């Protein structure tokens, strides 16, 4: 299964993958709902269409975060070494990056679920 994952990239930017997914998902939900409620005829469908749309987006976002978490777990050496990862070596730097990325994936996962929760309870564009 691990062979299906892309090769490891050494970059500062990988740290931000999961939060960026959260941001894009959040923005898509907000903009989608805003346009739907202001211009109901433009997108067509009823409020349930919007809810289904957000659920689909959420599943996609969560999957991407899980992939990012898997990559991070691999970078963290599958959890073989414990923190603090404070040695002056390239390996410890990588382990640190992997661990921090994994933690951020966890936070982003929870935050995406938080964002999606309202569609369980709200059934209309009430103000």
């Amino acid at each position, binding site marked *: 299964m691990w062979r299906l994952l892309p090769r490891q990239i050494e970059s500062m930017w990988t740290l931000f993958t999961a*939060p960026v997914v959260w941001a894009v998902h959040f923005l898509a939900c907000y903009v989608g709902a805003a346009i739907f409620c202001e211009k109901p005829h433009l997108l067509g469908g009823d409020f349930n269409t919007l809810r289904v749309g957000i659920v689909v987006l959420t599943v996609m976002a969560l999957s991407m975060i899980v992939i990012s978490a898997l990559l991070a777990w691999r970078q963290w050496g599958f959890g073989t070494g414990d923190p603090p990862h404070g040695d002056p070596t390239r390996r410890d730097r990588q382990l640190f990056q992997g661990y921090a990325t994994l933690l951020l994936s966890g936070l982003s996962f929870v935050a995406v679920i938080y*964002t999606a929760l309202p569609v369980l309870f709200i059934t209309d564009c009430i103000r």
Partner: protein
Amino acid sequence: MSDVSEAGRDRAAQEAQLRAVWANPSGWRYWTSVNNTQVGLWYGSAAFAFMLFAGLLALLVRAQLAVPENDLISAELYNQAYTLHGTVMMFLFAVPIFEAVAIFLLPPMLGARELPFPRLGAFGFWSFFIGGVFVCGSIFFGAAPNSGWFMYPPLATSEQAGIGADIWLLGLSFIEVASLAAAVELIVGIMKCRAPGMRVNLMPLFAWYLLIVAGMIIFAFPPLIAGDLLFEMQRMFDWPFFDAARGGDPLLWQHLFWIFGHPEVYIIFLPAIALLAMIIPTFAGRPIVGYSWIVLAAVGTGFLSFGLWVHHMFATGLPQISLAFFSAASEAVAIPTAVQIFVFIATMLAGRVIFSIPMLFAMGGIAIFVMGGLTGVMVALVPFDWQAHDTYFIVAHLHYVLIGGMLFPIFAGLYYYYPLIDGKHMSERVGRLAFWLMFTGFNITFLPMHITGLRGMPRRVYTYPADIGWDWLNLLSTVGAVVLGIGMFAVVVDVTLHRRRKPKGEQNPWNAGTLEWVSEPEENWGVRSIPRIESRYPLWDQKDLARQVHAGEWYLPDAKEGRRETLVTSVLDAEPEQVLRVGGTSYVSIFCAATLGTVFIALTFKFWVVSLLAGAAFLAGVIYWLWTGTGEIPEKEEKDIGHGISLPLYASGVKSVGWWAMFITMSGDGTAFASLVFGYFFFWTRHEDFMVGLEGPGMFWPLVALALFAAAWAATVAARETNRRGGLGLSRVLLGAGVALSIAGCAAGLAGPWSYGMDPTQHVYPAVVWVLVIWAAVHGGVGIIMQLYCLARSIAGRLTARHDMELQNVTLYWHFMLVTALITFGVVGLFPEAL
């Protein structure tokens, strides 16, 4: 024996030379210094002075509210006092003080001689200082802003707001420029100027926090600048962006303001927590528990804080589904925030805590902040917020968050880092007294406000009747404010008077483990030599490091060529890459800040000619600055930094710090542009018929403009490539062609709305089209100046195939310009056709 004395003489000579190179000018020329130590101190002192001024305004407000039906000050002065109090605290204290601390502390903490752009740092300080004096001074002429620190239209666009609103908009826009300049400096400094070996897993947590915060500034401040632009266009030229009668919408301002305003809260909070992350391990006598968790918390908070802005707008009638998204994110941000608090508690539990004055302030701050955080969780819930909105409950909440999350940690930092300024401690006795006065005074002031708010007292009222149960609560708050004020006054006395009493202490008096404590307060060079770092707490773990650094045994111990130099290292592993020559003492920073300040101040009073002349002088100053101070071709390729390492003196493209600065600046610029595009689509969603039957700019001119800008971009890229291959002549021709194409592009862009006679004062649709097109044209204009600059450098022989830093950076600018043109002309030209 003679060898030893010779080595000693060598060392003394090295030191003397280094000292001379980094020396400040004397007399009045002292103020032209650009060294991070001086600029940091000025920045911090100015921010502190503004804070004391705003504190006095708060006491004035409290005095007016002490008893019911009071008429101590006029209603107009009251409005100005609370508006200026909020404005000054947020814009002139809370954000700048962290920039000040960062500019002062980061170089020694990272083991750098200096940040990469010292003149930019000085320019930022002077801009801040001029703008700050202008905004604060207005109250002495009865002309201060009076519509609250978030300046909501339609109140703030009305006649009633007076010139104060313009002072707010233009003065603060100017200060935002300073903040962005500091953010660029800090990001590049942290990513590229760390000591060799200081990998990202060994970086001091302060640097991690500051990196995140500076990144947040790049994305949070530009929406406000875009909002200021729209706002000022309405006030000056009657373009109806926020006028509902002509299709505008006051809510757009609220969106733009809070897209800035909420991340701002965390921009203020995170650096303060960063100070605690340095202080707590020192006094717990052990490394922090959960370094990676702190990084998680900093990055997580940084992102989530951008999804909170609508929680300031819960009462504006947005669809409930939208409110719910923001409510959810507001609850989620409590997770990373709490992680930091738990990390601190765990560190203290795992170590043996010494309760010094910095720790008192740190603990007091955390206790207050936790309480503010918990009321924050309450007001993040929409139904509760509807009850508490715009009442004193909110005033209590925000002061608990800001004073606990920011002011107390800053005082902790002041007591902790004071020995780095002049090698002396502040008074333990005064500190203890000040802390208890401030802590009790604060709680007596703000705890009752929760109840005052729940009893219905709205924010910003001038006075109130006696018989509705608010009177004794208000009196209590006023008494508390006086106690808080006395506590702060004690600290001021300590800072100003202690110099006469205290003997010099030893270096590193707290026995801290981080590298900033290696710096010598009486020296200006940052670090004597730049060490290789092998630990998060090098002074604890690398035995004898301080002595080796002071003895000049590490990298770059000299300045043989008489130039100010620091090391540039790689982003992840901090491997040495380049010796960077940084700018020294110069008038140019002050000159540019003064002329740019004149532009903004003259605009406030509508002195068009003065503004135009000052703008020309500013441009001339910037070009002189760049021409004489950057992109210099060094006299040799490489320099030996000791220990057998030789590094290049010149870098261009992605390896140069200038490229990073351009990239970061343009990311911020792109965010401002995105905010304007957001405005365009916001107006589209608000109207059944967006164009209300008015003429658009057509398709022809926008598409011609797009094609011309694309061609200008291609010419610039081709110029870079031919130059790199040695074709200097062809490269110059291509740059010239680029200039011609850009001029034609600007003209074609403006021709669209012009030829259809679109009147921007008639309705918001033509106004928003004009503003987008003008944005693109102005950026085209800047692109033209850059192309001409490269052309001139090439002709002057200062831009060659090997030394092409300027052209690389200008091409990067043009990548962003191409995207700007694509979006602008795509949106204004094609979107109306798609409707």
